[in-house]
């Protein structure tokens, strides 16, 4: 028994269990690390999975192990081959044993080393055993485990050893006075056993008729570890000192492929989940080598279409398959501490493909680290164009010859512009004759605001409210311009706040300002402000309603709105408003409290009232300097139209123009669509705002 030996085998039946076989044989169970109970010690095998030890026993004297594929077994059933030539069945954990197999032993006539055991995965009761040479005995024994002797039988059964029905006699014996190093069942076809023999032969035994065992033989130095491709009954692989050979059992004279390696090959196994994928491990290597065997001449004759056209080519293909190779290092991908130890450092001692999970394998490093690894293949992704009824999804190649498809509705969740545009197009977005109808279709606040503005300004032009505009959709700037240029002066009206007699403000009025207010949606007029307040309240924005009322100097209405509000917080604000005074205490409390208010309109409201001048200096000299309303005007969380309307009421001509111009420039630069309120559809500014907007969002196509 070699001391440093380490091997790993997945149970073919229990997909979450594997054994590691070194000085001890240990049975592990794999689970997601999240699901492993706390305080249980486990070995991390990947970033998400861990393995817990279920059972363990000494492997003293054991030379070979295989796990049975008998589906009834509650725990993996192991066949252990000993140095004495004995083969024993065992489960590492005491469990229910439905078939009564645990403890059965199979012994050869003469004592010698047992080299290999192999369970058939097709007829799960078949167990093949490979032995060292003995001059008067066979080296390969085939047992039917259901007929094997239990320990109890053995005590009394030795004398009847030669009766035909004798349970202690193997079903078949092969290789008289030969040595077998390795046996393996082909899991594709029935009862085909592969064996590596006498350091130079590969033999294939056809055991369908036990009385007439057909054998095919080939001679090769690379005869070890022969194993069969689970997908192709003819394809075998074997390993040797510096090469892996791929064989076609139908032309067994020479290997179809010889894949050279620098170092002796320690293990070779076909991937059980993917065709033509062979994995090999070189001794003292930290990586595994994948051989993707490309067949270029499979069933060429079947292809009737190409039969004549490609005759010439076929000659070339008949040179046989070739191979795409790559190296994988399973430990490098494992998370955390495992990665550090795996990379470059310790060599891999053994690996085992998972019997069912796509391209998953387990590698054991000489250091004892275990790495759970899945061989990745290139995944191709394709986008469909949104066209047809079912099209437009995202598709990618999945495992096992499947496609994964995502319907195009997921674009809606990420608000992908192409999806939004397509949906708009199918609802005639932009084509509705009533402009506001487009707003509903836009399903986007900025855009629907734009459509509402367009509808409003169009109707104002049509009603004759705004005249002489060169554009169909004039903006505030266009409407106000005439005032600045034409020498109109707005009428400044000092006003008192009806409910706060100690306060006064100056209100500016002119025809242009009225029209601008109309554009801002404040078309209700000075005397009819209650309508606007009601509308804002009905929209569920009590703060805005209160602010509008206050900006129309109807403080009582504002307080009423706040008192009616659902949130108690707002009623508290009402308290603060009512307490308005010149007291320093109140002012300081305001300065501290206002920024904390959640709503921009409330802040604006407080700032507006605080800025209103006290009434008593009125009879001092000239009208007091303009109150500082910048706190309100810079409250950018307020809607632009409300800010502009506020400016149109309370700013003097010069300041108003400056404010509008400044805000307009700012919005154009930001590509903010709401800026069209100011610009209107004046071509130059309008296009530049769209340019910036498109630059920002690449949404140009939304607009028209």
């Amino acid at each position: 028994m070699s001391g440093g030996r380490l091997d790993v085998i997945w149970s073919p039946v229990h997909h979450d269990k594997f054994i590691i076989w070194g000085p001890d044989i240990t049975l592990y169970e794999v689970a997601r690390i999240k699901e492993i109970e706390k305080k249980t010690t486990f070995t991390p095998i990947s970033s998400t999975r861990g393995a817990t030890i279920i059972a363990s026993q000494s492997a003293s004297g054991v030379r070979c192990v295989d796990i049975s594929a008998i589906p009834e077994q509650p725990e993996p059933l192991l066949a252990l081959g000993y140095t004495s030539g004995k083969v024993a069945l065992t489960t590492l954990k005491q469990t229910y044993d439905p078939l009564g197999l645990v403890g059965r032993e199979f012994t050869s006539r003469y004592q010698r080393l047992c080299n290999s055991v192999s369970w058939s995965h097709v007829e799960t009761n078949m167990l093949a055993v490979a032995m060292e040479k003995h001059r008067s005995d066979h080296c390969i024994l085939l047992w039917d485990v259901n007929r094997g002797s239990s320990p109890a039988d053995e005590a009394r059964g030795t004398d009847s050893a030669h009766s035909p029905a004798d349970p202690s006699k193997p079903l078949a014996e092969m290789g008289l006075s030969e040595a077998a190093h390795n046996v393996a069942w082909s899991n594709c076809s029935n009862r085909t056993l592969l064996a590596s023999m006498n350091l130079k032969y590969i033999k294939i035994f056809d055991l369908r008729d036990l009385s007439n065992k057909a054998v095919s033989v080939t001679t090769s130095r690379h005869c070890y570890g022969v194993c069969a491709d689970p997908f192709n009954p003819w394809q075998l692989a074997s390993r040797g000192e510096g090469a892996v050979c791929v064989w076609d059992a139908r032309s067994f004279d020479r290997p179809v492929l010889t894949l050279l390696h620098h170092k002796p090959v320690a293990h070779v196994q076909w991937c059980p989940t993917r065709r033509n994928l062979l994995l090999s491990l070189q001794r003292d290597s930290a990586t595994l080598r994948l051989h993707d065997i490309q067949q270029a001449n499979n069933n060429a004759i079947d292809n009737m279409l190409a039969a004549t056209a490609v005759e010439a080519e076929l000659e070339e293909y008949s040179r046989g398959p070739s191979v795409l190779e790559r190296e994988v290092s399973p430990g490098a991908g494992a998370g955390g501490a495992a990665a550090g130890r795996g990379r470059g450092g310790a060599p891999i001692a053994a690996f085992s493909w998972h019997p069912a999970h796509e391209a998953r394998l387990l590698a054991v490093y000489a250091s004892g680290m275990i790495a759970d690894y899945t061989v990745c293949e290139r995944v191709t992704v394709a986008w469909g164009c949104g066209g047809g009824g079912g099209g437009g999804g995202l598709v990618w190649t999945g495992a096992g010859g499947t496609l994964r498809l995502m319907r195009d509705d997921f674009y809606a969740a990420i608000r992908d512009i192409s999806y939004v545009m397509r949906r708009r197009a199918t609802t005639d977005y932009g084509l509705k004759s009533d402009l506001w109808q487009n707003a509903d279709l836009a399903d986007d606040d900025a855009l629907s605001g734009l459509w509402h503005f367009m509808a409003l300004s169009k109707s104002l032009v049509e009603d004759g409210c705004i005249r002489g505009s060169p554009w169909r959709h004039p903006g505030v700037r266009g409407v106000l311009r005439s005032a600045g240029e034409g020498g109109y002066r707005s009428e400044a009206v000092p006003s008192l706040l009806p409910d706060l007699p100690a306060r006064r403000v100056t209100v500016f009025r002119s025809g242009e300002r009225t029209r601008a207010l109309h554009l801002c949606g404040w078309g209700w007029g000075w005397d009819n402000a209650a309508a606007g307040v009601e509308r804002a309240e009905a929209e569920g924005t009590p703060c805005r309603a209160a602010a509008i009322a206050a900006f129309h100097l109807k403080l009582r209405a504002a307080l009423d709105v706040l008192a009616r509000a659902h949130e108690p917080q707002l009623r508290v604000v009402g308290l603060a408003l009512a307490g308005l005074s010149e007291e320093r205490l109140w002012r300081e409390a305001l300065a501290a409290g206002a920024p904390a208010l959640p709503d921009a309109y409330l802040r604006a409201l407080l700032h507006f009232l605080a800025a209103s001048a006290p009434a008593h200096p009125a009879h001092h000299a000239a009208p007091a300097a303009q109150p500082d309303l910048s706190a309100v005007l810079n409250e950018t969380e307020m809607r632009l139209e409300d800010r502009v309307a506020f400016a149109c009421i309370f700013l003097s001509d010069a300041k108003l123009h400056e404010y509008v111009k400044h805000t307009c420039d700012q919005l154009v630069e930001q590509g903010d669509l709401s800026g069209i309120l100011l610009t209107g559809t004046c071509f130059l500014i309008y296009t530049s705002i769209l340019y910036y907007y498109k630059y920002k969002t690449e949404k140009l196509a939304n607009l028209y």
Partner: protein
Amino acid sequence: MGELTASNMFESETICADHKDLIHDVAYDFYGERMATCSSDQYVKVWDSDGRGGWRLSASWKAHHGSVWKVTWAHPEFGQVIATCSFDRTAAIWEEVGDAASSGSEKGLHTWLKRSNLVDSRTSVTDVKFGPKHLGLLLVTCSADGIIRIYEAPDVMNLAQWTLQHEIPTKVSISCLSWNPSLSRVGNPPMLAVGSDEPNTSNAVANVPSDKGTACNGKVFIYEYSETSRRWTRTECLSSVQEPVNDIAFAPNLGRSFHLLAVATKDVRIIKLEPLA
């Protein structure tokens, strides 16, 4: 997209394509109503949308003698045409003929005929792409030995005749390529991007002197066609990409003043190519 990721938000559905081996490529047609898949099982399958979100197999045939790496649709203006390329060193042009051939079990399956077989490559043909429609009916292939071949069908009605217009040796193994789909001919000559999957270990091979005479060990090369010299020349080597390239794709050009190229290595990079003024 913020915190949304495909895995935790969206369900994907699985189509059992019934390929016997790994699927290497899947491609939508121009309208997104048909899909073609190709696999190591040497088969190509075509799937049609049923208009209600489902997909139905409409054709399946053994297209090559080796793994089929890529499949790609021609613009529908040229008919229902796909091109495939394979480990068997060929690329093939397929055209759908007639309507559903209704015979027994084959009912509802369409027939695709091999119109042409491009056999110039001596090694595995790793990618195949039709050129942008405005350039005519062009096809480009690349192979593991690093030769890019550009074919043209002089008569778009005759898919059997393809002339090899250009053969561009690159000296590195080419795994993938992409046409720049930009429509503008002015200032945007026909452009191809190719990616190499040459492993990084063999430095000697990877150091390919570019046409400008400077060594570049990038893995992505840009080729442009010069109308005056009637040649494709390497105009750029993206030295920022050092890892083997698995796939490469230009973004559709939506009136941008630059090109966007996505490069898949171990990760994905989006590279902005700005034409020199």
